[in-house]
């Protein structure tokens, strides 16, 4: 049998139910792999005691024949999720030492479904970043390297620790969150699968807020089937999040058939952006052919407002962030600056926030403050919200014309070297989310699937965008793409 930590959720579950392994064995294998991979800086708070306790409890449930969907399966948890008694600091100095007295709804759902939490995973500070380089914990490192080159590469962001941990087999799967592409982009850069469900599928309660109208949690896994299993365990209606949907959660896994005959796949011409590398273009064309060969009908579509998605996002997300992050004031939790003689409460706020927030977070909070300030609210914020309506309408028209899913590239390039983008101006980094950010603005479900490798051997992925609440159908199309692409490569172990 392969090393247990290299298994996916479905395989491990089946072995557990047949009694061929135990959760304790699976968990020990992962904890060992985690300890041997400190150089990846993926796990930033390890919780081996909690993991072993839950593994033993899961084994008891399995023995008793009471095994819910995730029973005994070891996973990693993005640091953005509040986990009771365990440090949860959104990779920020300002939440240094914060130990929540409560558990987020998503992590509680996973716990109740029997999942074993191995620890907390690295990320960009407050999920603001696309390379995991804004983290107070330092960079997470991609387990993938270019052929014959040991340059350290980014695992993407913001869920960079989650992506690195899954790709390096430190856990069977991990949680992520996605505000502008933070699940799908790192999944694509690490050869893993990531799905952002429809806004409202997962409760946001207990997830440290970045931009509340865009934030959604989702799973990061080794296969589409695993994504279906874990997504089902994460979703629920939650009275504690008024935006969570009061809709039944389908059994996503049982709806997987891989049969997409008769489905219509849209190819949006506006995603063929200027300067797109030939290998991304080829990846996209290959994916289109795979879906055609699987029996889908492929049509060209137009999403005319695509170009305005990133500028609208960089008004709306900072505006919401400036409001959400106002709570970090040094009074109730986290860091408080040391004060000088005579400093009053305003100095306490200003010094605390200057010391606690990193550069990118400060920049976004201030841009948000500016676009919401008197005299600019209409010119920036309200205009961006109107453009958002138009972006959403583009998708609605495509779906109304009979399109079932939309196929696009996931990222404009493969993983880049750490530090390569930090010298560029902030806008260059923002452009990395060009293919993913529209989906958050429109609230739609989106999934990335690894389908190929670039000339240097690095994984590349494609994105599928689905109709609202039809994650089951989207996962099914993703399964067809995954089966046709047959991506099985793993990073060669160097750590």
């Amino acid at each position, binding site marked *: 049998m392969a090393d247990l930590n290299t298994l996916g959720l479905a395989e491990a579950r089946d072995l557990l139910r047949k009694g061929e392994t135990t959760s304790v064995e699976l968990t020990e294998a992962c904890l060992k792999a985690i300890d041997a991979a400190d150089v990846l800086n993926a796990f930033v708070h390890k919780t081996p005691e909690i993991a072993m306790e839950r593994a033993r409890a899961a084994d008891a449930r399995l023995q008793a024949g009471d095994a819910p969907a995730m029973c005994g399966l070891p996973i990693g948890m993005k640091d953005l999720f509040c986990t009771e008694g365990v440090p949860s600091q959104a990779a920020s100095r300002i939440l240094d030492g914060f130990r929540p*007295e409560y558990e987020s709804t998503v992590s509680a759902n996973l716990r109740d479904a029997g999942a074993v939490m191995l620890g907390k995973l690295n990320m960009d500070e407050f999920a603001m970043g696309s390379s995991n380089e804004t983290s107070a914990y330092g960079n997470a490192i991609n387990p993938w390297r270019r052929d014959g080159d040991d340059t350290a590469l980014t695992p993407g962001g913001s869920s960079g620790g989650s992506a690195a941990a899954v790709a390096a087999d430190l856990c069977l799967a991990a949680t992520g969150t996605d505000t502008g592409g933070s699940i799908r982009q790192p999944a694509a850069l690490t050869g893993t699968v990531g799905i952002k469900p429809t806004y409202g599928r997962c409760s946001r309660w207990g997830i440290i807020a970045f931009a509340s109208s865009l934030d959604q949690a989702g799973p990061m896994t080794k296969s589409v089937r695993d994504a279906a299993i874990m997504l089902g365990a994460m979703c629920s209606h939650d009275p504690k999040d008024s935006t969570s949907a009061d809709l039944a959660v389908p059994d996503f896994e049982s709806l997987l058939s891989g049969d997409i005959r008769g489905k219509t796949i849209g190819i949006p011409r506006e995603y063929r952006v200027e300067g797109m590398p030939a290998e991304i273009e080829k990846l996209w064309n290959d994916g289109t052919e795979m879906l055609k060969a699987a029996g889908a009908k492929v049509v060209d579509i137009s999403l005319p407002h695509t170009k305005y998605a990133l500028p609208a996002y960089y008004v709306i997300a900072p505006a919401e962030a400036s409001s959400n992050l106002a709570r970090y004031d040094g009074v109730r939790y986290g860091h408080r600056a040391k004060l000088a003689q005579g400093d009053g409460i305003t100095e306490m706020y200003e010094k605390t926030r200057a010391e606690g927030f990193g550069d990118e977070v400060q920049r976004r909070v201030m841009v948000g403050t500016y676009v919401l300030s008197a005299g600019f609210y209409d010119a920036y914020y309200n205009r961006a919200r109107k453009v958002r309506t138009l972006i959403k309408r583009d998708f609605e028209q495509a779906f109304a014309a009979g399109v079932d899913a939309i196929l696009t590239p996931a990222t404009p390039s493969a993983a880049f070297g750490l530090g390569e983008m930090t010298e560029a101006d*902030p806008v260059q980094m923002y452009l990395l989310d060009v293919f993913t950010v529209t989906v958050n603005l429109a609230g739609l479900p989106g999934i990335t699937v690894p389908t190929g490798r670039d000339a240097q051997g690095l994984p590349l992925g494609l994105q599928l965008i689905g109709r609202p609440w039809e994650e089951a159908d989207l996962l099914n199309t993703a399964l067809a793409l995954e089966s046709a692409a047959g991506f099985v490569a793993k990073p060669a172990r160097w750590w």
Partner: protein
Amino acid sequence: MSIDESTAARVAKLARIRVEPEALPELAEDFNRILGFIEQLNEVDVEGVEPMTSVTPMRLKRREDQVDDGGHAAQVLSNAPDAREGFFAVPKVVE
């Protein structure tokens, strides 16, 4: 629209983030780059378009206006940098 150093300083003040004077020129430059990028939105005709408020049409749930939880003062205060006698403690606010 161009942001000068005094505007950058005012925004930092509004955001309650201390920015040292020597950091203001670079901050103003960053703002200008980001706002320049955002300016593209002016090309879009938004006449008669309603701002988007929710992803799918749904009514926000209402709940009964009654106390259903509480009495957790110790837990609420457990992460405070400074808490005394059941309260958050802060520097003197009123002279």
